[in-house]
């Protein structure tokens, strides 16, 4: 909710800036001071837009480098930091989600193969897999186990829709 209030307060100046396309100088010191995500990417100094990167290896979300205008007001700075924080939280959640999913899927496959008396590799040396119907048990279990976590995530993301 805080994000929404901040968003509406600076909506119109940002809207004008976005549509006018006014060129502006980057404050290099403030840009360097801003807590960046994992990427080492630095947008060119002449740019006055946000930059979006390739999908993250673990979370599949694309990181955004937020542009810091020269004349950023305290309110705008607060919003930008809130957006940065939400983005990092989001990245962490999905990275964790995907890694957990992969790990549990591997464990499930190993345990099922073991129960069937099969090895982890087929005769041709390739990794043994289960068919879709056998995997369905895992998908169902994963979804029900993580239901509360997903509910919490949905509530959080709804309240912080400040992309």
């Amino acid at each position, binding site marked *: 909710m805080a994000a929404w209030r901040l968003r509406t307060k600076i909506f119109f100046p940002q809207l004008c800036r976005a549509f006018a396309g006014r060129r502006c100088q980057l404050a290099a010191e403030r840009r360097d001071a801003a807590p960046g995500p994992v990427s080492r990417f630095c*947008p060119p100094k002449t740019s006055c837009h946000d930059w979006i990167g390739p999908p993250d290896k673990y979370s599949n979300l694309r990181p955004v480098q937020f542009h810091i205008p020269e004349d950023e007001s305290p309110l705008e700075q607060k919003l930008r930091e809130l957006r940065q924080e939400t983005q990092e939280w989001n990245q962490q959640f999905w990275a964790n989600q995907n890694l957990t999913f992969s790990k549990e899927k591997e464990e499930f496959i190993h345990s099922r193969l073991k129960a069937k008396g099969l090895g982890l590799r087929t005769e041709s040396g390739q990794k043994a897999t289960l068919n879709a119907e056998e995997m369905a048990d895992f998908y*169902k279990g994963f979804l029900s186990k993580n239901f509360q976590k997903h509910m919490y995530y949905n509530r959080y993301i709804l309240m912080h829709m400040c992309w």
Partner: protein
Amino acid sequence: MATSSHTLSSRLLTGWVGGCVWYLERRAGQESPQKFMRLFRTVNKQWITFQHFNFLKRMYVTQLHRSLSQQVKPKPEPTASSVLEKTSSGQAKAEIYEMRSLSPPSLSSSRKPNEKELIELDSASIIEGSVEVGKETQDEKQWKEMKLHLDDLPGILARLSKIKLTALVVSTTSAGFALAPGPFDLPCFLLTLVGTGLASCAANSINQFFEVPFDSNMNRTKNRPLVRGQISPLFAVSFATCCAVPGVAVLAWGVNPLTGALGAFNIFLYTCCYTPLKRISIANTWVGAVVGAIPPMMGWTAATGSLNAGAFLLGGILYSWQFPHFNALSWGLREDYARGGYCMMSVTHPALCRRVALRHCLALVGLSTAAPLLDVTTWTFPVISLPINLYISYLGFRFYTQADRKSSRRLFFCSLWHLPLLLLLMLTCKRPQGGKGDQGEPRQ
């Protein structure tokens, strides 16, 4: 009627074009390594200038990087139908990138000890070293400025509004309008289509706005405009508002208030009920089926001004159709749904998923029989629609018993041609208007 046959032919054309494009892409992918080798040999016959070498290095590094990188850079979307996009794009893209990979050992594997061979080995080793550095700069090159490019805008907006799905929705609305009794009013018909189309665009845009992190994690949806950052969320919401307001206004004032209310209600149902429910409960499928059923009812109310039995019958047919269509589609997406936290019957209640699909295939037979009883069509309709209804029920039964990917895909693809054909048959068997008294009556 012309509209439905046009829909069928346009869908067939889109599917055919999509199939051709996919085939051409595969062929291009297969041919490029051979073309590259031919080019390399031709160039080596002459004196290799610095410019030639740089060009080759760039081409080679690009091709190598494609095979090395974990996350593939999204390609510009092929002009395939929504069906092909949904089901085969992931597999097609994987195949294309496999075809294009080129490894250094293959270049130096020839045994001819001559100048050509030495030049090839030298350039390969130099290129290998530059690949590592190239990888990092390639990663930086994948960062894009979040600036709106006006020439990309039509394509972006088409994807944001799910234009193909919107076209399908509009075609079901037009079928509802055409099936309704009363004289055909062209201006009203056009206003209905425009209003429904705008409302659908708005609903789809808001849906994409809410689902960015989920769409990023599913193969089917990871190339959507908001996921790729081609437009800002603010822009998407503004676009949705600019579609919703005129859309509902056109329906409410240009057609009639009832149609406007149905349009507004459908937008609300899709964005505020269906979208959040997808992650809470399997009931989302039933809500989604209602969302799909409302457009033909809107077409009916636009033509007649009231919701009577015929409107509910048409709505019922679309409602029942959604289940074999969606349940079969979702059967192949279980992994993505589970990982993304979506509550779908195919994941949590697989037996129910198949049972419901079969149940509603059989319901279509019943609803088709009810059509002449409600004076929507003549008795010819249940007779001529029986073969296709029985066929989809047969596939539904196969899906129920076999419960595998093959049967789900067959049912899904059948549903794609079953609906337009059913609506077309309904139109051809429409109950003819009785008496001259009907002709001069004003529409409400």
